[in-house]
């Protein structure tokens, strides 16, 4: 015994006359507790009343040396029971609510009496006794209370509606009392026992009951009642020696943002998520319970409606790609009225790409992204998360465009569209998207903000946004004014730059929208304005242009005259406003252009110093930096150390590095995985990257890797999502790379870029592993030899090695070298060994019919190899692991050809005897020679009838020369193979007179 005792503790055990209660009472009593043994003395069904049971238990406790008194009151009268304790022992420390009865009946037939009685005894009874003891415990600051619930209550059970309700009620009672008693040192725990008792013996079969002894429950109860036990509020399932704790589990669920309507359909849509226990949590109390609810309350929905869902919008982004070249640039310039005078040198540079000063108009920066968006919209591909309205609702309201340096004449760009903000101008909405256009090196080329008026999409009760105007021009006269007439067909020219909206071309369409004729594109006017400011304030040098912000106020019709009035607010800031001269209407307002004070650097500063030159070793010097070899060598080691990785990840990664160009792979798909140089078969994803970014790639920071991708520095093809699985390598110890580097440097930098690291190879399965595995398997199945009775000889090529599986002799064996008299010999390239033992007979046959697998001997016997098909592949892996542990390389494990004693000597000796005795004869009087191979011997038979001579040696006058291996000569001599069969198989070669070949059948019986 551990010494855990209950001396001076007073325990009340209800229903202690029999079963569990009795056992609890006996155990506590035997450990020093003073026990009130309560038992009404009734039957299991609440019938009758007798004092005998309780008295008997009191006697038993006393016999064990304990102290106990009996109490015969109903548990409904808890005061009386507690009074017994107070009278006898002066206090109460422990209450074990155990008493109970059954009134099982189906719910349909259940009477009020059935219901009330059960609830009274179990629930009210437990409450009654506990409540009577409660003030005593509170006062002394100590108490241990046990409630007895049941699996029926926790999980439900047929025919026990009353009992289930009462039992789960007890659980609820205990949960509450645990909280109320927590500060007073009162611990309340609940057990759900299963034991043989008067209550269960009518339900369970006797053989099970025999194992469900109450003695197997009481130790848990005693511990929970001990002063050392800190457990409270626990629920335990216990029985037949099994004890476990139960807790609540809750799915992560789904949170509908508050402030947004959701209805039955939304619930159904989210049902899978609501009921998905993946990553479930385990709330312990009501605080835990309501935490997500309060969290949702404190993070209300950003709002939205059927058109605009701000909660979705803030989370999402859209990436589109586009490219442009000089032609697009020039066409755009023409579209916004540049070089209208073809002899004007100041603008010819915008359209004449062969000129030395060919320049891109800065406002072109708005075009690639809007072109990409419109192009995507045309095919229905433009869909911003959370935005569910058609382009027909959209009215371009404001535009902000910024560049960091003059735009290149051509570029391939990636545009990242993000939602910036939305305002509720009920009934309409104003939405702003921010678009970052980055080039292939990840440098931002242009930043745009497009603010649009969305008709009818407002009304979600959101912020109306700032009111008041910005960029309001001063009262004074403008510092410059430029007036320019647009052409009548201006829109037709401009639209070729990408905005295909028929509103700008189709007169009927325009009429339908209430215009007399097609209107000019807002961004076309925008372009005119940009040109005007450049002309007026930067001496026609577009390189000073930094940004432009405009608000589109009214439409312009092509052919109208634009008047741009400009105010210089500072050297770098120009406010402007554009009106249509003919109608005297302001069309662009609240507008400003910012200029650089100095022309920015033409080329972007490289984000990281290129290290292509020194990332690879030169021929003479050892590169001490970490190289790709080191990295992949380390990955290879890591993969080898985690044989389960491939099974989990099931993905093949192909890497193509540039500067310098190299190819590497991480195969977490085939076998137990590998990594190394070169290309793998059918990768899931291909990752292209500059060598300089390799640190980032394997640095474990997914955010940095994503940046490379979105910045266009990393290209993915194939299954792009599969690239995420690279994170499995994040558990790799960076020290491995350092070790690989150190090892390489120490080895004088032998850095074979094209060859996979050797460390990886040794971890691969070798023939030695396979045959060791087969050997294990054979040892585990002694009946195989009798069943199969066949021996297999394997001759592998590339590299050459010889192995055998003997399922014929003794207990069977497998290993390197030769088996005596194999039934079948299998010749195969080592690379096909997986197929051979892969268990797929069709694949093996393919090798055979393809001529890659050569069989000799009893070919059909090769089928018996299938006896190995139920071998556990783990045996091979185990053999490999063992080999690795023992540090044996594959080369050391392979065994060279075993020596074989020639059989020919004995056979020809026997032949000589037979010839002497006249039992052997060749046709005619010829001379024949045998060339026996493996081991090589040569024999001659010469003479004539009655006088044959057999000797070892050779002859120049042999009429027939037979060539056969020593082994097959023995097979012939033993009669296992016929001469014809050997000949037809090409195993017996016959040069010269064939007639004599038939005489070879006489060799039968010579061995």
């Amino acid at each position, binding site marked *: 015994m551990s010494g855990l005792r209950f001396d001076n503790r007073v325990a009340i055990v209800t229903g202690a006359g029999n079963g569990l209660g009795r056992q609890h009472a006996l155990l506590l009593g035997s450990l020093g507790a003073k026990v009130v043994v309560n038992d009404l003395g009734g039957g299991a069904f609440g019938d009758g009343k007798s004092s005998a049971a309780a008295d008997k238990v009191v006697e038993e406790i006393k016999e064990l040396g304990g102290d106990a008194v009996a109490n015969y009151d109903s548990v409904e009268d808890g005061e009386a029971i507690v009074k017994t304790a107070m009278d006898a022992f002066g206090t109460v420390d422990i209450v074990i609510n155990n008493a109970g009865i059954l009134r099982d009946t189906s719910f349909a037939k259940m009477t009020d009496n059935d219901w009330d009685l059960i609830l009274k005894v179990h629930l009210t009874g437990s409450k009654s006794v506990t409540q009577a003891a409660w003030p005593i415990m509170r006062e002394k600051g100590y108490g241990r209370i046990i409630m007895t619930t049941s699996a029926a209550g926790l999980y439900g059970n047929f025919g026990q509606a009353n009992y289930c309700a009462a039992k789960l009620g007890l659980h609820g009672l205990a949960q509450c009392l645990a909280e109320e008693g927590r500060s007073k040192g009162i611990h309340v725990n609940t057990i759900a026992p299963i034991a043989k008792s008067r209550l269960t013996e009518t339900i369970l079969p006797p053989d099970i009951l025999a194992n469900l002894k109450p003695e197997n429950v009481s130790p848990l109860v005693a511990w929970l009642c001990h002063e050392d036990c800190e457990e409270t509020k626990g629920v335990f399932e216990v029985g037949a020696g099994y004890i476990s704790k139960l807790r609540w589990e809750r799915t992560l669920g789904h949170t509908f943002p508050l402030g947004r309507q959701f209805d039955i359909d939304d619930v159904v849509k989210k049902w899978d998520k609501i009921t998905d226990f993946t990553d479930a949590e385990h709330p312990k109390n009501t605080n835990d319970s309501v935490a997500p609810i309060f969290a949702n309350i404190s993070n209300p929905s950003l709002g939205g409606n059927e058109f605009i869902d701000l909660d979705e919008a803030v989370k999402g982004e859209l990436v589109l790609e586009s490219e442009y070249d000089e032609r697009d640039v020039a066409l755009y310039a023409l579209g916004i009225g540049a070089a209208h005078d073809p002899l004007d040198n100041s603008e010819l540079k915008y359209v004449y790409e062969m000129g030395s000063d060919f320049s891109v108009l800065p406002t072109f920066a708005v075009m690639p992204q809007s072109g990409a968006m419109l192009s995507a919209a045309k095919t229905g591909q433009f869909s911003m998360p959370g935005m569910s309205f058609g382009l027909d609702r959209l009215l371009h309201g404001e535009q902000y465009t910024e560049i960091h340096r003059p735009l290149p004449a051509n570029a391939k760009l990636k545009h990242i569209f993000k939602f910036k903000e939305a305002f509720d101008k009920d009934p309409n909405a104003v939405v702003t998207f921010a678009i970052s256009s980055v080039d292939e090196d990840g440098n931002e080329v242009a930043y745009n903000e497009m603010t649009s008026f969305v008709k009818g999409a407002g009304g979600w009760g959101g912020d109306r946004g700032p009111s008041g105007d910005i960029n309001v021009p001063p009262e004074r006269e403008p510092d410059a004014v430029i007036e320019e007439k647009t052409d009548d067909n201006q829109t037709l020219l401009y639209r070729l730059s990408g905005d295909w909206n028929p509103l700008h071309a189709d007169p009927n369409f325009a009429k339908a929208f209430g215009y007399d004729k097609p209107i000019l594109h807002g961004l076309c006017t925008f372009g005119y304005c940009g040109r005007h400011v450049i002309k007026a304030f930067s001496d026609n040098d577009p390189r000073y242009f930094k940004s432009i912000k405009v608000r589109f106020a009214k439409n312009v019709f092509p052919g109208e005259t634009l008047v741009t009035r400009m105010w210089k607010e500072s050297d770098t800031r120009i406010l402007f406003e554009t009106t249509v001269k003919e109608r005297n209407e302001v069309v662009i307002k609240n507008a400003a252009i910012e200029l650089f004070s100095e022309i920015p650097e033409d080329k972007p500063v490289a984000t990281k110093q290129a290290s292509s030159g020194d990332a690879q070793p030169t021929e003479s010097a050892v590169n001490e930096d970490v190289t790709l070899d080191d990295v992949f060598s380390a990955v290879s080691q890591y993969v080898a150390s985690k044989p389960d990785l491939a099974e989990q990840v099931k993905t093949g990664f192909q890497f193509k590095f540039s500067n310098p160009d190299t190819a590497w792979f991480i195969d977490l798909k085939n076998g137990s995985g590998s990594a190394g140089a070169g290309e793998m078969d059918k990768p899931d994803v291909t990752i292209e990257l500059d060598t300089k970014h390799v640190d980032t790639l394997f640095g474990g920071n997914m955010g940095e890797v994503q940046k490379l991708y979105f910045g266009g520095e990393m290209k993915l093809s194939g299954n792009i999502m599969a690239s995420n699985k690279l994170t499995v390598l994040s558990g790799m110890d960076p020290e491995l790379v350092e070790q690989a580097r150190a090892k390489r440097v120490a080895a004088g930098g032998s850095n074979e870029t094209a060859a996979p690291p050797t460390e990886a190879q040794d971890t691969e399965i070798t023939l030695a592993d396979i045959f060791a595995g087969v050997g294990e398997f054979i040892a585990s199945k002694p009946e195989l030899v009798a069943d199969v009775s066949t021996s297999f000889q394997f001759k592998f090529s590339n590299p050459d090695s010889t192995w055998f599986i003997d399922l014929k002799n003794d207990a069977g064996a497998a290993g390197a070298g030769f088996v005596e008299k194999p039934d079948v010999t299998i010749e195969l390239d080592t690379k096909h060994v997986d197929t051979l033992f892969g268990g797929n007979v069709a694949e093996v046959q393919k090798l055979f019919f393809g001529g890659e697998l050569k069989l000799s001997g009893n*070919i059909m016997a090769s089928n018996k190899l299938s006896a190995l098909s139920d071998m556990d592949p783990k045996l091979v892996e185990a053999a490999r692991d063992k080999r690795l542990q023992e540090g044996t390389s594959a080369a050391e494990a392979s065994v060279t050809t075993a020596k074989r004693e020639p059989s020919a000597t004995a056979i020809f000796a026997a032949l000589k005897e037979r010839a002497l005795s006249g039992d052997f004869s060749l046709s005619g009087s010829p001379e024949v020679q045998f060339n026996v191979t493996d081991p090589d011997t040569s024999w001659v038979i010469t003479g004539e009838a009655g006088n044959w001579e057999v000797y070892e040696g050779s002859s120049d006058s042999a009429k027939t020369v037979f060539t056969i291996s020593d082994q097959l000569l023995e097979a012939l001599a033993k009669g296992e193979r016929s001469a014809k069969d050997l000949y037809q198989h090409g195993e017996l070669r016959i040069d010269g007179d064939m007639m004599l*070949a038939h005489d070879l059948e006489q060799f039968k019986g010579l061995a």
Partner: protein
Amino acid sequence: MNRRVNVIGVGMTKFAKPGSSADYHEMAREAGTIALKDAGIDYSEVQQAYAGYVYGDSTCGQRAVYELGLSGIPVINVNNNCSTGSTALYLARQAIEGGLAECVIALGFEKMERGALGSKFNDRENPMGKHVQVMLDSQGFTSAPPAAQMFGGAGREYRWEHSIKRETFGQIAVKARDHASRNPYALFNQPMSLEEIMASEEVFDPLTRFQCCPPTCGAGAAILCSDEFAKKHGIDNPVYIAAQAMTTDFASSFEEQSMIKMVGYDMTKSAAAQVYEQAGVGPEDVQVVELHDCFTANELITYEGLGLCPEGGAEQFIWDGDNTYGGKYVTNPSGGLLSKGHPLGATGLAQCTELVWQLRGMADKRQVENANIALQHNLGLGGACVVTMYRRD
């Protein structure tokens, strides 16, 4: 209705080794154009086309025939392994003989890869599956080219049964080289000695390299017509098909565990018997034979299959020179598959071409004297065998 079928035009390309030929449709154009010119008719007169080839996607036949003209006639693609060409000829003959057409063309072409034959579709049952099984059971499988193992295996079996010398097979190749040296259309034009033949690399005992036909590219064509058509076009005394039979495998190919039977000996024997029966003449009346010598071993057993010599008599037949000029027959005056080459789809029509030339007395240096009855034997594993007898009165 059994009408006489005349062969009024033949043509072939010079056979070439893989990689040095024109494309298939160009070769077909050349052979077809020569055949049309030989017949003296315009392509518009041709009512149907039977185009044979083994290697190529579907409807190569059309593509090839379109080189001759686009008259919308039926074009039937024929694929029957090594006997493809004569199978096209067989169908063409049936069309004329049955009165279904007056003039048709049988065209065969093949653009082959280098190296031994192999299967292209390995994701399905091998058409030779049953044949291979016989081989597996009787001699196993080695890394040698499968066809060489099959025919070589038949050679082994023959050799065991009849105790012939290995050189007897080689002697057939010597003869083939000799014949081919007289044929400008042949791939190999140089004679070769028995020593050279035997000393060449052993492919599969008893076959050495020069006893195996080479992969070849080429095309052949024949124009077939009815008597009425020939008469209308003023064609006088044309070569005609006296008899023709086609067989496929019998149970003996698979059930007798005999390599000789497996490679089609009984197909040959049965087709030949039918031809002799139909024509009313026996092998002894034949002067010139083009037979399927894909390997020397097959020529040897085919002598017996066609009844050119008694069973077991092939070795004697060969060493007596009864298979060449001055002997009982001239077999494969063209050089045969062994030396002229074996473009699978074209072979049957090249054999036809050679025999028509022989019967017309147009075979130049290889002309067989007084040839008026010719026999053609074309065999494919898988299997099919077509035996055709040509006559010119």
